[in-house]
């Protein structure tokens, strides 16, 4: 077995101790082999230099990527407090890692391009299969950032990612890159080599009410719906004045996002509204083009759990001729809120499909993953409210009977 993955978890109060404890556990699981790539996720309580020092104490200076999340995802469910580490040891893995900082000055699109160039440079090989990104979750237009990445890597290059979070504070999120803790940044890897990756993406939200049309929009701002200020859709459906809706917009829109109809896709693409602009337009986390059919969406625990099974199945089916060695799980903070104490059941469903493999992840402010339909040529888009799974597979050897 040339690829081994180990995960470690800690709830120790001191970030240094937590980092070293999680790293020690993960290192033990990979039998103290050389680390090819490592991932670090934590709740914001641990976002401190000491966390990385604790990891360095155990494993030196590994090639490390990750970010803060609203919750930490471990194999038995969600933890509102903790540190999770994944170490991958593989002779087949090739990757280029990079960090691009200061999106506020450069703009999200430029940041995406800068990161992609740097990652390709670090990879320094023509063969590449997958990009994995962790952008600052406070970037208002996630689609713009993704456009920058795709401008360099290609429109249909498979990109999966998780936007860092700070548990509904919306103040500061953190990105981890080698021995640095960053904010306002994008970190990630372009992966090549002999490993395979299976992506699965589902949300389970269903449309309610009649279809409406976005009649005017600018990038990620939906200006009007059915020629009325976009906020009116929430005011109308919830029977509350627009002012009251605006006050509680994030809470309402995370539970009841806008669903954009995408021809050929099994599910609507979801958009959370972050705020209301001066004209009553809804500022969303991703693009929403004029002319798109839009509906209000509603989720249930049962459908969210079914979506978890479907996402895991999708990731598993993409790795038919591979042994799954581990998986990264990125789940929207809204799903965590919806599922409440059932997040343990969600993880059980994922493990039922992927097997009892090492898992780690976070609750995010947004996810990046490709659309499946032919019309979109597998192009990656920004998503809200989804469960995104990246299963890491190792192709069976020639003698394998499967």
């Amino acid at each position: 077995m040339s690829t081994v993955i180990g995960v470690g978890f800690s709830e120790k109060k001191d970030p240094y101790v937590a980092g070293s404890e999680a790293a020690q556990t993960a290192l033990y699981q990979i039998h103290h082999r050389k680390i090819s790539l490592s991932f670090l996720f934590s709740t914001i309580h641990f976002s401190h230099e000491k966390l990385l020092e604790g990891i360095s104490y155990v494993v030196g200076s590994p090639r490390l990527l990750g970010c803060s999340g609203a919750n930490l995802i471990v194999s038995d469910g969600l933890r509102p407090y903790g540190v999770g580490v994944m170490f991958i040891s593989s002779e087949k893995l090739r990757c280029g890692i990079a960090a691009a900082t200061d999106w506020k000055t450069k703009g999200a699109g430029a940041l995406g391009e800068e990161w992609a160039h740097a990652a390709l440079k670090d990879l320094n090989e023509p063969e590449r299969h997958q990009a994995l990104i962790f952008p600052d979750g406070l970037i208002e237009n996630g689609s713009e950032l993704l456009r920058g990445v795709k401008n360099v890597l290609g429109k249909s290059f498979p990109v999966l990612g998780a936007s860092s979070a700070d548990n509904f504070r919306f103040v500061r999120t953190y990105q981890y890159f080698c021995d640095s803790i960053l904010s306002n940044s994008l970190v990630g890897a372009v992966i090549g080599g002999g490993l395979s990756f299976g992506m699965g993406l589902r949300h389970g939200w269903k449309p309610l009410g009649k279809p409406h049309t976005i009649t005017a929009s600018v990038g990620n701002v939906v200006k009007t719906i059915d020629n009325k200020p976009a906020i009116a859709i929430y005011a109308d459906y919830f029977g509350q004045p627009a002012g009251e809706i605006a006050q509680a917009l994030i809470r309402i829109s995370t539970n009841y996002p806008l669903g954009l109809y995408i021809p050929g896709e099994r599910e609507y693409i979801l958009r959370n509204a972050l705020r209301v602009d001066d004209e009553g337009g809804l500022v969303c986390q991703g693009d929403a083009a004029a002319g798109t059919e839009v509906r209000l969406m509603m989720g249930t625990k049962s459908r969210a759990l079914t979506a978890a099974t479907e996402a895991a199945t999708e990731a598993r089916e993409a790795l038919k001729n591979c042994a799954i060695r581990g998986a990264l799980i990125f789940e929207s903070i809204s799903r965590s809120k919806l599922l409440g104490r059932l997040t343990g059941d969600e993880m059980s469903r994922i493990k039922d499909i992927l097997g009892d493999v090492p898992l780690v992840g976070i609750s995010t402010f947004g996810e990046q993953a490709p659309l499946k339909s032919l019309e979109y040529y597998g192009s990656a888009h920004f998503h809200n409210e989804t469960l995104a799974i990246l299963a890491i597979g190792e192709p069976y050897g020639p003698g394998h009977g499967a």
Partner: protein
Amino acid sequence: MVLATALKQAGLAALVMNYAGMIGIIAVIVLVLVLVFKMERVKELNADLANLRRAFDDLDNQGKIILQTDLELHRAQEELDKKVSGLIALQELTRLISTTLDGEEIFLKIQEKHVSQIGFDKAIAFTRDADGYRLRTCIGYTWEEGEKVMNLLLGQPLLSRRILEEGRVFSSADEDRANKDVARLLALMALSSFVCAPIVQKDGTIGALLVGSESSFTQLTGGDKDLIYILATQIGQALENARLFEETWHAQQELEQKIQQRTHELSVALEEIKTVSKRKSDFISAVSHELRTPLTSIKGYASIVAAGKLGELPPEAKERIEKINKHSDNLTNLINNLLDISRIESGRVEMKMETIDLRAMVAEIGDMLAPPIKERGLTLALDLPEGLPPAVGDKNQIERVFINLVGNAMKFTPAGGRITVGAEDAGEHVKVSVSDSGIGIAEKDMSKIFDEFYRVDNEINAQVKGTGLGLSLVKYIVEAHKGKLTVASTVGKGTTFAFTLPKASAV
């Protein structure tokens, strides 16, 4: 011809025209009919469309109802989830803080993960001691920030009154957002909402617990207030327990220290007593020996002189010599007793332990003492049952015990009285008693009668001389046999001395 042809043609044309007109009319009629039919169809379609629109709008309205209902359910579910998570965290925290009896450690048990579990980001707790309010725990703030937050709370009259004076929970959600004091406080504490509950002990509020959320999307509920109040109460209770434990522990330590000190003092005193006692015994032994030698000479010479071996004495001289002889006997007896006590006390007397038939021994002593008993008008009764198990002891010493006790009874029992010597099997011992129907011993004298040289202040003792060593000697002899000597007495009714001796079968 031409005309006919023209007429014919004209007729034909007219006919054609007629036909064409008819066809046209028919066509128009058909078109009108089609139009009417189409219009009807359009009408029907419009009606269908209107129905569809209405149905669509109805569905949309139903969707709105579903959404609004779902929103309510969602809030209730979220509240319920929050409560359950909070209760789980509370249960864990309660378990943790109730397992420690150290006031400082109680606060160390409250950690960031617990604050997260109950849905908050930051927390501080402070309590009052002799020097004023002191920050005890600080989560999500630096210690300096925590102290600032504490001082802010203490300096805010609305909060300090409600929490510390009235012992009520305060939630920022209870106040109007426009309340400038609360808004200012929230900004200074870097929070968007908070709950603060009093830490209460039996004597009243001693501090407060504050938990807060940075996220403006956190909605505080009544459940949050209840939860934080319970947690603060648990902390107060745990602190109370810790305080009580500490007090008890200190009292116990103090007591143990006192006991140790007292034990040490007693040990020192005991050693001193032992030393003094040994010196006394040595002194008595030395003095007795030194006294006995000249006394023997005095008595010997007095006996010779009294017997007239050195010539007949005048009656006055003989009387004096006999008194010298008698007092020499008393003195010898006193010295012997003192020597015996001294020897027994210092362990210099070795008891020659042997089996004793108490019935036989008592009978012999009865015979021996029968004349003086009779002379005093007393009755001696022996109540030793047949089959009384034999005892183990030094025969001579036990005889001295009997003689002393019976002699004592004879001394303090008026004529006509009765002396009874009894014995019984008492498990591993044989219990022997000497009872009389004499004058008895007063309660105040009971504890002193075994002291050396102690003599009860009564009429008989005033008339009859004694050494005050008899009962002391008895006690020493009985204790040297690992027995126990007791006395029971009623003034005017009599006295019973009882002692135990080891049973032969038990040795």
